C-alpha cells in the first residue's frame, strides 16, 4: 500500500500533467499561427546593410566592379590603369595598364557583363574584359582576376573625344554607340561573318547617326537623312516610316527651335542590339532602331522629364529602361503595345521610384532580379526594385560618387567617390519583389499592356520577372467556394430538415450513411470529378441543363402516383418514406434527361452547346470547370452541412413543435416557421463550417480544375485556388525564398479565414446549446 502522501503527490502531478495536455491543443493552434506568421514576416522587410568598408584609391576612377563573392574589386582609373584590390585587407593584388595613347585619358566607360568599353579623350574606343576565376586549394577559395584587352577602334574621322559610350555584344557581334565631345553620334558595329570554316572575316560598319537626333522644327524642311532612309524603306519595314519624328509625340518639336543639333547626355543600348536610347538635356529620350546597322531610324522621341536626362540604364533582361534626371527623379520606362502609335509600340512610364534631391549620376542594375542602384550628385545612394516600386535602402555619403557597381549577386554596392575613397556596403535584401501592392494589387509587369493581377511564380529564363499577385488565387478560392455552396447549402439544409422532421423513424439509419459520405477522402472525389465526371459532363452537358426540370417533374409525378396508388398513404408508410419512394422517379428523370439531352441540344442549342455557349453567352467551355468543382466540392460539403444542421434541428425542444402542431399548424408550417428559425444559429454555423471546408479543400480543386490563374466568373472555365497553388508549388520552392514565403502567406490567409469562420460558428453553436438547455 502506497503511503497517503505519495498518492497525493501523484494526484497533484497528474492534475498538472493533464492540464498541460489540455493546453497543448491551444499551443498547437498558437504555434501554427506564430510559426506561419514568422515565415511570412520577412517578406515585408526592407534591405539591410550588414557591413561597410572603405578603401583608398589614387586618381580619377572611371569604373569599379567586384567578383561574385565580393572578395576582389577592380578599379579602372582614367589613365588606363586597372588595379585589383583584395577586399579582405585592401592589398593591391594586380595592376594592369591599358595601352591608351600618351596624353589622352579615359573620358567615359560602359559595362557589358565582363566587358568594359572605354572611350578616350582623343576619340578612341577600347574594350577590356575583366574576369574573375576561382580556384580551390583545399577548402580555401582563391579568386584570380584576369584582364585581357580585346581590341580598340578608332573613330573614322576625328570627331573629338568620347563624351559617352554604350556597347553590347555577343559571340559574333558587337555594337557600340558613342557621342563625341564635338556633338557627333556614331554607331559602330562589328560582325563576324559566320562561315562553315570557323569565323570568317569581320565586317565593320561605322555610321554617323547624328542626323537622327536633329530636332525638326515645324517650318523646316525634312532633313536629308530622313529622305534617305525613307527611300530605302518604302514598302519595307512599317516601323521605318520617317514620320516617326512626330511633332505630336514631341511637344518640344512644336516649338520652332532653330538649333540644329541636340546634345546627348546619356546613351543606352539593349542586349538585342536593336534599340538605342539617348537622353538629352531638355528631358527627351530618343529611341532609335538599329536592327539594320546600315539604316538606323528614329522610332520615337518621348519627353521623359522636365529636367535633363542624366543617366540611363537597363534592368536585367534589357526590357525596362531606368531614366534618371537632373532633378533627381528615377523612373522606369518600357516599350508597351499601343494601337495608336504607328509602330504598334510606345515607350511608357511604368514605375516611379523615390527621387533623389540632386541629379542622378549613375545607375547599375542587378544581375539577379529587377533591382537597381542609383547614385546622385549629392552623395545619396538608393537601392530600388522596379516591380515592387520600392526603395529598399537609402544612404548618404559626403561626396559624389564618380562610379558605382551593384555586385553580381545583388548583395553589395560599391562606389568610388570624389574624395578618393572606394566604399563598399554589404547588403542583405532577401525579398525586394514583395510589397502589399505587388501581393494584392495591380502591377505593371514587363510585356504587359497595363497593370494587372497576375500570378506566375516561375519562368523559363533568368531574367524572368516573378509575378506574385495573390489576388487571382483568392478569386479562384472564392469562386470555387461560392459555386460549391450554391449546390451544397440548399441540398444539405433541406435534406437535414426532411431527415429531422419528416423521415420515418425506421429510416433513421440514413443519417450515418450520410455521415460516412463525409468520410470519403477528397482525393477520391477529385479523381472521379476530374477523370470520370469531367468527360461525362462534357458529353451530356445539355442533359444537365434540363435535368433540374425533369427531376422536379418526376417529383410531381411521384406525388400523383402516391395519391392514386391505394397501397400508400396507409399504415406506417403513410408519411416519412417519401425519400425512398422518390428513388426510382429521380433515377428515371436523370435517365430521361440524358436520353433527351441530344434532342434538346439539336433544338435549342443550335446543335452544339459549345458553339451556343460561346456564341450567345460569350462563355468558353473548359472540360474541367467551376461547375464540376461545385458539384464535387458540394459533395464534400453536403454531409458537413447536413450533419450539423440536422443536429440543430432535431435538438429543437419537442415542446415547441408540439405547441405549434396543437395550434393547428401543418407539419410543414411547423417545420418552416418554428423549427427552422429556432435552429437557425445551428444552420448558420453549419454553413460557416461548410464554407471553411470549401475554402481549404485542396485535392478536389487541384484535380477538377485546370489550375489556370484567371479571374473570370464564368461557370464553365477553371480557376486556380490558394490551396491547390500551395500544394503544386511549395515542393519546388526553395526554403526561405520569396516564393516559399509567399506560399506561407497564402496558407496564413487560409488559416486566418478558417479560424475566424470556425470560431464564429463554434461560438454561435455554444450559445444555441445554452439556449436550448434553457427552453
Amino acid at each position, binding site marked *: 500500500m502506497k503511503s497517503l502522501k505519495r498518492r497525493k503527490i501523484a494526484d497533484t502531478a497528474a492534475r498538472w500533467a493533464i*492540464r498541460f495536455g489540455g493546453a497543448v491543443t491551444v499551443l498547437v*493552434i498558437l504555434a501554427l499561427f506564430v510559426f506561419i506568421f514568422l515565415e511570412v514576416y520577412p517578406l515585408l522587410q526592407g534591405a539591410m546593410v550588414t557591413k561597410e568598408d572603405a578603401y583608398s584609391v589614387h586618381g580619377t576612377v572611371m569604373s569599379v566592379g567586384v567578383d561574385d563573392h565580393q572578395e576582389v574589386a577592380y578599379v579602372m582609373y582614367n589613365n588606363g590603369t586597372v588595379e585589383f584590390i583584395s577586399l579582405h585587407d585592401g592589398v593591391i593584388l594586380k595592376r594592369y595598364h591599358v595601352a591608351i595613347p600618351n596624353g589622352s585619358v579615359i573620358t567615359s566607360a560602359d559595362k557589358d557583363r565582363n566587358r568594359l568599353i572605354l572611350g578616350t579623350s582623343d576619340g578612341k574606343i577600347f574594350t577590356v574584359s575583366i574576369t574573375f576565376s576561382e580556384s580551390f586549394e583545399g577548402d580555401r577559395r582563391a579568386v584570380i582576376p584576369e584582364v585581357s584587352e580585346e581590341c580598340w577602334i578608332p573613330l573614322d574621322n576625328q570627331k573629338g573625344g568620347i563624351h559617352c559610350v554604350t556597347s553590347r555584344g555577343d559571340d559574333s557581334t558587337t555594337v557600340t554607340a558613342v557621342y563625341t565631345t564635338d556633338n557627333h553620334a556614331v554607331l559602330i558595329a562589328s560582325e563576324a561573318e559566320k562561315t562553315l570554316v570557323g569565323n570568317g572575316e569581320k565586317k565593320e560598319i561605322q555610321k554617323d547617326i547624328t542626323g537622327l537626333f536633329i530636332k525638326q522644327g515645324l517650318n523646316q524642311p525634312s532633313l536629308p537623312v530622313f529622305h534617305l532612309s525613307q527611300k530605302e524603306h518604302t514598302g519595307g519595314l512599317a516601323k521605318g516610316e520617317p514620320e516617326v519624328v512626330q511633332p505630336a509625340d514631341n511637344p518640344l518639336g512644336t516649338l520652332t527651335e532653330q538649333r540644329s543639333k541636340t546634345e546627348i547626355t546619356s546613351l543606352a543600348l539593349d542586349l538585342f542590339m536593336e534599340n538605342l536610347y539617348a537622353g538629352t538635356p531638355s528631358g527627351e529620350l530618343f529611341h532609335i532602331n538599329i536592327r539594320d546597322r546600315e539604316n538606323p531610324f528614329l522610332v520615337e522621341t518621348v519627353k521623359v522629364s522636365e529636367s535633363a536626362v542624366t543617366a540611363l540604364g537597363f534592368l536585367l533582361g534589357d526590357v525596362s529602361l531606368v531614366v534618371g534626371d537632373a532633378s533627381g527623379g528615377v523612373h522606369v520606362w518600357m516599350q508597351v503595345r499601343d494601337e495608336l502609335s504607328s509602330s504598334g509600340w510606345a515607350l511608357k512610364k511604368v514605375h516611379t521610384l523615390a527621387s533623389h534631391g540632386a541629379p542622378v549620376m549613375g545607375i547599375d542594375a542587378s544581375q539577379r532580379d529587377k533591382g537597381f542602384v542609383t547614385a546622385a550628385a549629392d552623395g545619396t545612394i538608393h537601392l530600388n526594385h522596379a516591380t515592387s516600386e520600392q526603395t529598399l535602402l537609402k544612404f548618404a555619403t559626403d561626396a559624389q560618387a564618380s562610379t558605382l557597381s551593384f555586385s553580381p549577386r545583388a548583395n553589395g554596392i560599391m562606389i568610388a567617390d570624389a574624395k578618393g575613397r572606394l566604399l563598399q556596403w554589404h547588403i542583405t535584401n532577401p525579398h525586394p519583389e514583395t510589397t502589399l501592392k505587388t501581393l494584392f494589387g495591380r502591377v505593371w509587369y514587363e510585356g504587359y499592356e497595363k497593370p494587372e493581377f497576375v500570378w506566375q511564380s516561375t519562368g523559363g529564363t533568368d531574367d524572368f520577372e516573378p509575378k506574385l499577385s495573390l489576388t487571382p488565387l483568392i478569386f479562384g478560392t472564392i469562386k470555387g467556394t461560392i459555386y460549391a455552396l450554391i449546390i451544397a447549402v440548399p441540398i444539405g439544409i433541406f435534406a437535414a430538415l426532411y431527415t429531422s422532421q419528416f423521415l420515418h423513424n425506421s429510416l433513421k439509419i440514413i443519417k450515418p450513411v450520410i455521415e*460516412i459520405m463525409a468520410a470519403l477522402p477528397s482525393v*477520391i472525389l477529385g479523381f472521379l470529378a476530374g477523370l470520370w465526371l469531367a468527360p461525362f459532363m462534357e458529353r451530356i452537358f445539355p442533359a444537365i441543363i434540363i435535368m433540374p426540370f425533369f427531376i422536379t417533374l418526376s417529383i410531381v409525378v411521384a406525388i400523383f402516383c402516391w395519391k392514386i396508388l391505394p397501397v400508400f398513404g396507409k399504415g406506417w408508410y403513410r408519411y416519412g418514406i417519401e*425519400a425512398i419512394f422518390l428513388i426510382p422517379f429521380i433515377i428515371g428523370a436523370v435517365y430521361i434527361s440524358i436520353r433527351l439531352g441530344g434532342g434538346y441540344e439539336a433544338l435549342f442549342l443550335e446543335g452544339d452547346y459549345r458553339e451556343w455557349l460561346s456564341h450567345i453567352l460569350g462563355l468558353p467551355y473548359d472540360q474541367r470547370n467551376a461547375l464540376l468543382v461545385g458539384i464535387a466540392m458540394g459533395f464534400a460539403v453536403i454531409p458537413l452541412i447536413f450533419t450539423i444542421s440536422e443536429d440543430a434541428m432535431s435538438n429543437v425542444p419537442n415542446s415547441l413543435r408540439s405547441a405549434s402542431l396543437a395550434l393547428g399548424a401543418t407539419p410543414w408550417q411547423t417545420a*418552416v416557421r418554428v423549427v427552422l428559425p429556432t435552429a437557425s444559429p445551428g444552420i448558420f454555423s453549419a454553413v460557416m463550417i461548410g464554407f471553411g471546408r470549401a475554402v481549404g479543400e485542396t485535392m478536389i480543386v487541384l484535380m477538377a480544375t485546370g489550375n489556370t490563374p484567371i479571374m473570370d466568373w464564368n461557370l464553365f472555365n477553371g480557376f486556380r485556388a490558394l490551396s491547390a497553388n500551395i500544394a503544386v508549388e511549395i515542393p519546388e520552392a526553395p526554403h526561405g525564398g520569396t516564393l516559399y514565403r509567399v506560399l*506561407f502567406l497564402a496558407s496564413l490567409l487560409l488559416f486566418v479565414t478558417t479560424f475566424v469562420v470556425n470560431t464564429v460558428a463554434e461560438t454561435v453553436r455554444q450559445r444555441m446549446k445554452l439556449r436550448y438547455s434553457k427552453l
Partner: protein
Amino acid sequence: MKNFLRSGNPYIWLTGGTLTACLLMISGLVVLIMINGFGIFWPRKIVQFTLQDGTVILGEVAKRESVPHQKDAYRTKVKVGNRDVYGMDFRWIDNAEIVSQTYPVHALTFERREWGNLYGFLHGLRLDGGVKPLETESMASLLGESHALYKKIRYIEKKEIGNINYRMEKIRLELKRLTLLQPSEKIQKRAAALNTKIEHLEKIYREKEDTLAGFYVKAREKEVVVLLADGREKMVPVFQIVRISMPNEMGVFAKMRFYISKFWEFIWGEPREANTEGGVFPAIFGTVMMVLIMSIAVVPLGVLTAVYLKEYAGDSFISRLVRISVSNLAGVPSIVFGVFGLGFFIYFFGGGIDKLFFSESLPAPTYGTGGILWAALTLSLLTVPVVVVATEEGLSSVPKALREASYALGATKIETLWKVVIPQATPGILTGTILAMARAAGEVAPLMITGVVKLAPSLPIDSHFPYIHLERKFMHLGFHIYDVGFQSPNVEAAIPMVYTTTLVLLFTVLTLNLTAIVVRNKLKKWYNTGAM
C-alpha cells in the same frame, strides 16, 4: 389540390427529394467505383476487327459510345496494346467501318514487364538463331523458368547489391565524419581499416555484377515469336513476359483463377511501368505504417485533452479556449497543416536534427526532408479533434455512480480516472482512434508536401539496422490515385489501376468508419443495458 398545396406537403416531397439526391449520389459513387474497380481484372475477350479498308485490329473493347452530333452512329474504343509497335494503347474505330468481328480462339494476351500488353498469336520460339514451333502448353514451363530467373535477378539487385550499397554508404559517411575530426594516428588507422572494407565490398560488388550480367545474357536467349494482327512478326523475350492468357478460350473457372491471381498481384505486388501496372503493395504498406505512427502520436494527445475538458476543466476561460482550439484544429484546412509540417517539422526540427546528429551527410538531408515520421506527426495534429470528440463522448457516457463509488472507497481523482473511468471509456477512445485513422488514411494534400513520393525505392521497414527508418519517404494510396491519374505519362492506360486503387482506399476508409460506428453503438448498448 389547393389545400394540398397550402398544407405544404409538396414541399415536404421536395425536401425529401434532396435527401434522395444525397443518397443517390453516394450510392452512385460507390457503385461506380465498385464496377470499375472490381471489373478491371476480369479477363476480357480479344476481338479481331476487320475494317473496310482491309486493316485487321486485335484487342480488347474498352468503350462503345455514340458519335456526338450524329444519329445512330457509334464508335468503339479498342485497346490494341502493343505500345512499342503502334505507339499508343488505344484506337477509336467507327462502327460503320467494321466489316467483321471475330473472337479468335488462339489469340493471346501477353502481359509484359515493359510496354504494356501485347495481343497476338503465338508463332514459335527463337533459340540460338533458329525458330522452332511452340505450343501454348509448353509456354508454362518456359515462363516458370524465366520467372525463377527474374526472382534471382531481383534478389541480387534488390537484396544483395542493395545491401552492399547500404553498407558502403554507411562506411563513406563514417569516413566523412572522421575527416571532420581532429586528425590523429588512431583516426588514420580507423580510416585505413574502413578503406580496406570498402575495397572488399567493391570486390564483392563486382562479382555480383558479373553474375548479374551472366543472368541477363541468359534472359535474352529465348524469344517468343508473336504474330500480330497485321501480319507482322514481333520478337518478345520470354524474360519480358509476366503472364500469358488466352481469354477467348477460358472457362468461367479459369477466368476466376486468373482474376484472383491478378487481384493477388495487385495487393501484394510492386508497381511496374510508372505505377500503371502491377501492384500497390508499397502504397498500402506506407499508408498503414504512416497511420500507425500517427495514431501513436495522436491518441495520448487527444485523450489528455478530452480528459482535461471533461474531468478537470469545468467552465473556465481556459477550457473555452481549449474547446475553440479543438474545433479550429478540425476546421483548419489540411494543406495549412502540411505547410506547417514542412516549415516546422521538416526544415526547423528535421534541419536541426541533421545539424546535430547527421552533419557528416550534409548538405544531403537525412531528417531535413520529407519523411514518414514528419508526415505522420503532421497528420496527428490534424486528427486530434476527432480523438478528443469521441473520447469526450466515451467519458461522458461513464455513469456518475461509478466515479462516486470509487471516491467513496477513498481513491484519488487520478486513481479513479486511471482505474475506473478510462477503462470504461476505452470504446470511446477506440472509436476516436479508428476515426482518426480513417481520416489520416484518406488525407493527401498535407502528405504531398511532407514526404510522399510516387515511387519509394525502399520500404520504411527493412533488414538494415535500425530496421525502422522513419526518415524515409513513402508511398500512399491516396497520393497514388492522384499521381497515377493525373501525373502519369499515359493516363488513359492508367485509369483502370486508379479505379482499383480507389476501391482499396474506399474499402479501407469505409471499413474503418463502419467499425467505429459499430464500436460506438456497442458502447451505447453497454451502458444502456449494464447494471450500472
